[in-house]
């Protein structure tokens, strides 16, 4: 491999990391809001509101049923509005965040639902407010499941960035398309694929490690 190629890959990797990091952060923030809202407004939840629940759920299903590439195209005007352009990694972050938020919302919802009703009830019985129950009971109790789910979510976002690369987002996905597909440079293609696999592995390992350390504290003898 020549130096040009290494530079190219390095730049692609940095762009991908940049997109994954910010998209994950924004998608996570929106996902937490969505997931928590879905759980607390559900039937029997601490802030029961069936209508709101239904609306959010329907919107999430709607967004999730769109193929990502279509969603990105639909969100291009929003990217232009927020970051002033529809090209490059920063513009992609807008679409990726919004595209991944419903996905993370569902993941977070299902993790929070694992917390037993009894624990919530015990908190209610001592006079805890819904706010306290959400932040001191629901989220901490669900933490291992949350981390496991969020790991899956971030890996999903990593894959999304590769797709976004196909339509001008930059990053490793874009390299793979531009060089590997359009110019038949197999070495670039293989190198980008390896980098993406490595990236996904590192994310998975980190998530596993985190879950393990939480569980070790809670469920293992000293």
């Amino acid at each position: 491999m020549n130096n040009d190629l290494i530079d190219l890959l390095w730049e692609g990797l940095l762009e991908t990391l940049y997109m994954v990091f910010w998209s994950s952060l924004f998608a996570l923030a929106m996902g937490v809001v969505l997931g928590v809202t879905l759980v607390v407004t559900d039937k029997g939840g601490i802030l029961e509101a069936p209508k709101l629940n239904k609306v959010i759920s329907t919107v999430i299903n709607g967004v999730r049923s769109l193929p990502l590439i279509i969603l990105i195209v639909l969100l291009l005007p929003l990217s232009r509005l927020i970051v002033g352009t529809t090209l490059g990694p920063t513009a992609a972050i807008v679409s990726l965040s919004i595209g991944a938020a419903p996905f993370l919302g569902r993941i977070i919802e299902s993790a929070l639902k694992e917390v037993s009703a009894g624990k919530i009830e015990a908190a209610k019985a001592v006079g805890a407010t819904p706010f306290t129950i959400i932040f001191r009971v629901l989220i901490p109790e669900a933490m291992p499941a949350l981390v496991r789910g969020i790991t899956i979510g971030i890996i999903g976002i990593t894959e999304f960035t590769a797709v976004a690369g196909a339509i001008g987002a930059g990053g490793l996905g874009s390299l793979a398309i531009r060089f590997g597909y359009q110019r038949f440079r197999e070495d670039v293609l293989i190198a980008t694929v390896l980098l993406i696999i490595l990236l996904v592995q590192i994310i998975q390992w980190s998530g596993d490690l985190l879950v393990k350390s939480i569980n070790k504290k809670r469920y293992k003898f000293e």
Partner: protein
Amino acid sequence: MIHISNLSKSYKTAKGVIPVLQNIDLFIPKGDIFGIIGFSGAGKSTLIRCLNRLEEPDSGTIEIGGKVITDLPEKELRQARQKIGMIFQQFNLLDARTVFQNVAFPLEVAGHPKPFIRARVREILDLVQLGDKENVYPFQLSGGQKQRVGIARALVNQPDLLLSDEATSALDPQTTYSILELLREINRQLKLTIVLITHELDVLQHVCNNMAVIENGRIVETGTVEKFFLNPESDTAKRFVHIIDHYREKRSVMEGVGAGI
């Protein structure tokens, strides 16, 4: 202490509206250990959960220590709940928190300062004999120890009333006995009113003074525990006491046979 009048509650299900509590009238004196017994599905849990409004009754009133619980708006209800402890069959401890942090939870909710919480939690953990377990997670505790944490959590904010829904049903007889002893001790020391739900006669006999029998959502008998055993009136009471009598007879027959050999 507790006045329940004309309390009714029903659940709406696919099969229609099922009445679970029907026109309950009940008085529970201050400082009593009051037992409520009934067969499975009679409505015991629903009744006790109405007392702190984990379940909303359809109609009727509940007055606890002069406060009409059934009329309280959300915020005042939460304040009232801070003075009503509750223990559960499944303990319902928080896995993410140590024993100390579990017991501290009601005090955090009540907004007490840290030094106060520390002192108070230690005090109550000593009372339930778990002083040496404060940094342990619930996972590492036995059932009996978990229930002691549950009791400590229920008592830490000095409630006037303790509700117990089958708190010993998941425990072996030996552990049940030690938990009941603890409840009796607490009742004596802290002059705390305890409402205790059970389907075990042993529990009634061991700790309760007065009691009520619930059958199909209605209170069919109230009085002292002694009267219940000596002179059961309702069908449910007779069935419960009959079971004991049956075994008592069997035992005396067996003992008689043994003596004959």
